[in-house]
C-alpha cells in the first residue's frame, strides 16, 4: 500500500496533491490517503476519482487551520499502523514540511523533490532535484518505508472515469500541546489581491529590463487576461515589487498556460520557477539572452515600447 498526504486549505482541496496520487498509483494499485482537519471530511470522497481507496481523516477539535506538526504526527500514526511501502506528498512547501515532520517523528529518511521513484524492499531508488532541478541526483534510500515528496508538475493529476468515491475513515490522532503549538493564527493580505501566483493561468513577469517605473503595462495586461504579475529576484531585491510576486527557485514555482518573461535575462534560479509554463513569450532587447532558448516566442526590443502596444492590441481584441 502507498499512503499519500493530501493537503487542503480550510476545506479547499490542494490540486497539486493529486499529482502525488498519480505517482503513488505508479507504484501500487492500493493507494490510501491521509487528510487532516474536520473540513477535510467533505472533500475526502472525491479522492476516489483519482484512484484513492480509503482516506484516513484526522479530526481533532483543536485543529481548525493548518497545523504542520500535528499533520506530521497524524500521518506518522497512520504509517505506523499500516506500514505502507511508501509515504508520498507533493513537493509543495506544506507537503515537504509535513513529510519532514513525519520522517523526524518516525526517525526515517526523507527524499524530497523526487521526479522518479522505484521501490525495492529495504532500498528504494529515487531521482530527485538538487539545485531546484538544475541537477538531478540518483539516490538510494535505505528504509523499508520510503518517505518521499514528488516535485510539483513531475506527474499529472489523472482521474479515473467511473471510479467510486473513496471510503472515509475518521480518526483522532494522539496529539500533545507541542504538536499544536505551531498553527496559522491569522491571515493578512499581501496587497496583491486577486489571482494567486501559483495558480494563475497567465503570469506576466518582469525583470530588471522593465525598470522600476515600468510595471504599469504589465499590470494592465495581467488584468486584461485574468492573470497576475510576477517578477524576477533582482526586482524584489531592489524593492520594486513585493516578494510575494517573485518567481523562481527561492520564490514561487509556476506552471501557467502562458508566461510572459519581460526584460528577464533567464538566470537558472528564475528558469527553475517558470520552465513548466505551457507557452512562454519572452520580450528582451538581447536576442542572445538565455530566456530566449526557453521561450516559445520572442520579441526583440524594449519592453517600455512593446508592452503598451500589446496592451492596446489585447484591449482592442477584447472589444
Amino acid at each position, binding site marked *: 500500500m502507498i499512503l499519500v498526504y493530501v493537503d487542503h486549505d480550510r476545506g479547499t482541496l490542494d490540486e497539486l496533491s493529486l499529482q502525488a496520487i498519480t505517482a503513488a498509483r505508479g507504484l501500487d494499485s492500493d493507494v490510501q490517503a491521509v487528510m487532516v482537519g474536520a473540513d477535510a471530511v467533505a472533500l475526502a470522497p472525491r479522492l476516489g476519482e483519482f484512484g484513492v481507496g480509503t482516506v484516513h481523516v484526522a479530526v481533532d477539535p483543536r485543529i481548525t487551520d*493548518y497545523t504542520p506538526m500535528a499533520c506530521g504526527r497524524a500521518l506518522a500514526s497512520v504509517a505506523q499502523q499500516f506500514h505502507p511501502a511508501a509515504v508520498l506528498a507533493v*513537493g509543495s*512547501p506544506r507537503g515537504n*514540511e509535513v513529510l*519532514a515532520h513525519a520522517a*523526524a*517523528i518516525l*526517525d526515517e*529518511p*526523507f527524499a524530497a523533490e523526487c521526479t522518479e521513484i522505484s521501490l525495492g524492499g529495504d532500498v528504494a*531508488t529515487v531521482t530527485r532535484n*538538487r*539545485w531546484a532541478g*538544475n*541537477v*538531478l*541526483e*540518483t539516490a*538510494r*534510500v*535505505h*528504509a523499508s518505508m520510503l518517505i518521499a515528496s514528488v516535485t510539483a508538475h513531475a506527474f499529472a493529476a489523472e482521474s479515473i472515469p467511473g471510479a467510486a468515491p473513496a471510503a472515509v475513515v475518521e480518526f483522532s490522532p494522539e496529539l500533545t500541546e507541542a504538536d499544536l*503549538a*505551531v498553527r496559522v*493564527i491569522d*491571515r493578512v*493580505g*499581501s496587497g496583491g*489581491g*486577486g*489571482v*494567486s*501566483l*501559483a*495558480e494563475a493561468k497567465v503570469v506576466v513577469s518582469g525583470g530588471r529590463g522593465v525598470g522600476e517605473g515600468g510595471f504599469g503595462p504589465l499590470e494592465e495586461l495581467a488584468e486584461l*487576461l485574468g492573470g*497576475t504579475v510576477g517578477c524576477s529576484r533582482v526586482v*524584489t531585491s531592489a*524593492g520594486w515589487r513585493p516578494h*510575494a510576486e517573485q518567481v523562481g527557485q*527561492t520564490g*514561487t514555482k509556476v506552471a501557467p*498556460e*502562458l508566461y510572459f518573461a519581460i526584460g528577464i535575462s533567464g538566470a*537558472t534560479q528564475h528558469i527553475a520557477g517558470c520552465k513548466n509554463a505551457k507557452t512562454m513569450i*519572452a520580450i528582451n532587447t538581447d536576442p542572445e539572452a538565455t530566456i530566449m532558448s526557453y*521561450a*516559445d*516566442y*520572442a*520579441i*526583440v526590443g*524594449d519592453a517600455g515600447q*512593446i508592452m503598451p*502596444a*500589446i496592451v492596446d*492590441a*489585447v484591449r482592442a*481584441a*477584447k472589444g
Partner: protein
Amino acid sequence: MDIAVCIKRVPLSPGRWTLTADGTEIDTSSSAMGWTLSPHEECATEAAVQLKETDGGTVTAFTLGTPESSEQIRELMAVGVDRGVLLETDGAEWDAQATAAALAEAIRADETDFSAVILGTESADVSGYQVGVRLAHALGWPIVTNVKGLSVSNGVARCERVVGSEREVYEVSLPAVIAVKDGVNIPRYPSVPGRIKARKKPIDTANPTRSDPRVEKVSLALPPQEAGTAEIIGNGPDAAPRVVEILKEIGVLA
C-alpha cells in the same frame, strides 16, 4: 537574546553546470567557480543580526563542512556574527538526518543558552527541506518553516509565510527554530571595519562522526536540455498583433 544560525558552504550557482568525470559532484575546479552560502542562509543571518541589534545578545554561526567552510563563517562575521562553530568533515556528504543530529548535539552542548536557531528552509545544493524540522524535533522546540516575515517581542516570534496571495501568520514562544526563505529581508553587505573585526573573532571546531547516509547519493546528472530556440515574432511594438493571434491560438483570449 542569543541566537544560533546554521549555514552551509555551497558552490556558487554557475551559468553553465558541469559535473566531475565520475558524475558524483558539481565540478568546482574551474577558476570561475567560487563558494558561497545559500541565499536563504544569508537572510537567516541578517535576521539574527537584526534581532541582536534591537535586543542585544550574540549570534553564533554553526556549520557542518570542510575546514574551508570557515571562509563562509568569516564572511558572516563581517556582517555581525560574533562566533563560529565548525563541525569539521572530510568532504564526504552527510545526509540530513546525520547533519541535523550533529547540529542538535553541538547546539545543546554549547555554553550559550540559545533562544532561537535561524536557518534556511532548504539548502541551495541538496535542497532536502528537512534539516530545520529534524533539528527542532531533536531540540524539542517548535519550528516555523518558509518564513518570509519575522519579528520578535516578549519572547514570542511572529512569523509570516506566503500562501497564494495571502500571508499566513504564526506565533511561537521561544526557544524556537525559524526556517526562513530568501526575501525575509535584504542582507547587508560587509563593511571594511566589519571585515577587519571578523579576522579576530573566534571559531571553535569539533569533529563529529559521520554515519552511513540513509539517503545515499549514487550519481548526479544534468537534466536533458529542454531549451530550444524561440520563434522570433518581431522586433519592437509591431509584434503586438501577432501576440494577440498567439493568445487566441492557445485559448487565453477569446
